[in-house]
């Protein structure tokens, strides 16, 4: 029991690191091997994660629409997603004539690569982080805005009017909603005084920001969830793919594995957004702590930190999925009205509130 409690991801990671450094004399080689291992681990984590999210989305959708969702393949339909993957792999990856072949094939890769990059500074568990860069929050918001390049590239190179329209829409959408996302991230940065992910998590040791920062932080949490739903192009902000209007938007022309990569990117993005919301507002891997109640805090520490992180992340993923299956899609003008007339002014005022609160020390 004691051994089980002391073994954590971080000790495994540092153990592997020391072993590699001691067996391989060349430091560069050891570092490269480490990077490859990290990449493989990431893939081994992400692909099952996307399976789980895909299955979860269908079940949530089914239950919310009074249906069963998938229930034929495997127990409770849990192998449905495997069948779908096999289908996608078997399909021909068509490149349309007239398309810009290089960009067309590059776009899905860019989508996946950008969202893999954003995963780097996310803390999955206590002391378990790929890269604890000191500008973590800035890095996340900078890299995640690169995703729009992938979308525009896909839309532009497809040589298809639907794709182009979808891509242009998503350009306008992501550029506008980034502002609100940034401002709501800033409110936590103001309170923490650091951009580093590990500092942000550690600052919530006496209580998560959403509790300690009360009203202003709750407002910025809500704005963050809304705006980031828009940023990852999920319904009700899925104008970029709007099935009924644009067939499938920017990925109309994609099939087979290239389409699967877009799907993968969509689910990884969903995970990232939820993970960031969980880290900044709900304390990341930090267990539920109340002030200085030592006994209570100590009991909470018995739940592994990775479980806390995944639990919070999946809670937010569920909320974003519920958005998708509850709300009707916005029109383009409504979409921009929501951002420029409501979310942005509110988050600006809210930033001032948070600043005043941080200076006066009105938070707990």
């Amino acid at each position: 029991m004691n051994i089980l409690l002391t073994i954590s991801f971080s000790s495994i990671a540092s153990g592997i690191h020391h072993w590699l450094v001691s067996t391989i004399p060349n430091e560069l080689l050891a570092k490269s091997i480490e990077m490859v291992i990290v990449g493989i681990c990431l893939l081994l984590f992400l692909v099952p994660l996307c399976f789980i999210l895909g299955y979860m989305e269908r079940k949530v959708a089914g239950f919310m629409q009074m249906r069963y969702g998938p229930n034929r393949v495997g127990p409770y339909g849990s192998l449905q997603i495997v069948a779908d993957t096999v289908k996608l792999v078997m399909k021909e990856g068509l490149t349309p004539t007239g398309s810009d072949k290089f960009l067309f094939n590059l776009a899905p890769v860019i989508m996946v690569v950008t969202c893999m990059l954003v995963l780097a500074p996310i803390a999955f568990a206590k002391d378990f982080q790929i890269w604890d860069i000191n500008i973590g929050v800035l890095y996340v918001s900078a890299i995640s805005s690169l995703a729009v390049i992938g979308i525009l590239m896909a839309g532009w190179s497809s040589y298809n009017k639907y794709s182009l329209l979808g891509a242009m829409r998503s350009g306008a959408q992501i550029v506008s909603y980034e502002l609100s996302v940034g401002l709501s991230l800033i409110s936590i940065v103001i309170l923490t005084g650091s951009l580093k992910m590990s500092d942000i998590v550690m600052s919530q040791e006496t209580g998560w920001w959403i509790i300690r920062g009360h009203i202003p932080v709750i407002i910025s949490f809500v704005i963050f969830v809304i705006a980031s739903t828009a940023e990852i192009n999920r319904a009700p902000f899925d104008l970029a793919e709007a099935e009924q209007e644009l067939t499938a938007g920017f990925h109309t022309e994609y099939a087979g594995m290239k389409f699967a990569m877009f799907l993968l990117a969509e689910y990884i993005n969903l995970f990232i957004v939820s993970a960031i919301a969980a880290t900044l507002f709900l304390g990341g891997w930090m267990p539920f702590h109340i002030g200085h109640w030592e006994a209570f805090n100590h009991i909470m520490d018995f739940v592994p930190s990775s479980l806390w992180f995944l639990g919070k992340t999946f809670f937010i993923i569920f909320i974003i999925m519920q958005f998708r299956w509850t709300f009707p899609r916005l029109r383009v003008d409504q979409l921009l009205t929501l951002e420029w007339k409501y979310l942005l002014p509110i988050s600006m005022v809210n930033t001032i509130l948070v600043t005043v609160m941080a200076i006066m020390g009105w938070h707990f």
Partner: protein
Amino acid sequence: MFLTEYFRTVYKGVRSLLTGMKTTGYYFTHARKEIKTEEYPDNRATLTMFDRFKGEVVMPHDENNEHRCTGCQACEIACPNGTIKIITKQEPQPDGKKKKAIDTFVYHLELCTMCNLCVVACPSDAIKMAQTFEHSVYDKKQLKKVLNKPGSKIMEGVE
């Protein structure tokens, strides 16, 4: 003035969104009770169709093999796509006179749109809609049905 209007819009928007989420949240948490899906081939034995459902036109016969059809052909005229074909015959009565009666009631299931017009048109309630729906067959000819059973005759007292 502007500000109150602004905040009222925000309030109304948030409230209606939350109402929506409450509804879907209820469906999600009460899935076992709320799910309306009929798992058809699995629940074939217990499946009951609702009253409104129309599956095919049938002619009910009682235990003496008697039906209520007088052969008036009102249904044939009412049918918009020629689904019904009625072949009549002259039946001798005990008093020596002859009376028009039905010989064959031909019903082409493959043409029927289940519009119910024939049932409404029938003056003597001789036909009705059944709720069967497993109609698929390998040969189109099997869809042509004769609704009056062999040897059946009209019920006493139906004019």
